[in-house]
């Protein structure tokens, strides 16, 4: 594909993920927006009187630490992808 096509695709992708922020602008977690679907499912399960029988062996002690670890996860993945694609691109140029 041409670079311009790729950029258009990336922009469409960005719009899909930015649109909800615009649609629900002004709303927040306090009035039930932008919560995680995993948590919503857990609440649904709790409404059946089920008691979780095991809890996580370790939990990030705060939201800060949690975001640190999520950023770390994304960074590890991104480094590997970037490294491989950079390597392949360079390889292609030499040939």
């Amino acid at each position, binding site marked *: 594909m041409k670079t311009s096509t790729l950029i258009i695709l990336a922009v469409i992708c960005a719009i899909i993920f930015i649109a909800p*922020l615009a649609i629900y602008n002004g709303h927040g977690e306090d009035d039930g927006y932008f919560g995680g679907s995993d948590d919503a499912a857990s609440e649904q399960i709790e409404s059946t009187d089920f008691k979780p029988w095991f809890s996580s062996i370790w939990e*990030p002690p705060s939201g800060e630490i949690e975001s640190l670890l999520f950023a770390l*996860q994304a960074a590890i993945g991104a480094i590997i992808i970037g490294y491989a694609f950079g390597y392949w691109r360079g390889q292609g140029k030499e040939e």
Partner: protein
Amino acid sequence: MHIMEGYLPIEWCLIWFVVAIAVVAFGIYQIKKIVDETPESKALLAVSGAFMFVLSSLKLPSVTGSCSHPCGNGLGAALFGPAVTAVLATIVLLFQAILLAHGGLTTLGANIVSMGIVGPLVAWIVYKALTKVNVSSTIAIFFAAFLGDLLTYVATSFQLAFAFPAPTFTGALTNFLVIFAVTQVPLAVGEGILTVIIWDRLKEYKPKLLAKLDALAPNEA
């Protein structure tokens, strides 16, 4: 799609573990075979795993007003098949279960089945079927990634409805589908587009390797 730690009755934990262990074991065997036959596919395996790592760390807002994350399992499925993808998903899910308290060790089996097996299996079938009739692999990968992501969440909804059929199985299933699958539709479209972008670059840089892995449409190879 993460079923939280302890949020699944023990018998269901065991059932899903049995399925997951069997498929992951087969996947490890397949990885060994692929790496022996085509050593240069190692980097591609790493990229497929890394793609899942990145995408499943991104919790994105959906038009339903709640947040969820894509899975990134379509890429690995199209390249290597569902069993190998199950191994990659296990790594991601272990990282999140141990370090992020997302998902859990007791529910690991169930989460591997949804994100590592059902989603990738559907993605792989769709991908192979479309490329077989000479649909461009770039288009096929979009549908593979879109359905792989969506079906992962559908699988989770089914797993929860089996375990918690209250008031009825269909009622519970509808509730979980509304929570998971509906939220997921726009995210799955986004994941499809992102996978297309990665795929396009892969096709440009590593066409021979993709052909060797039999991951292209016959008229592209």
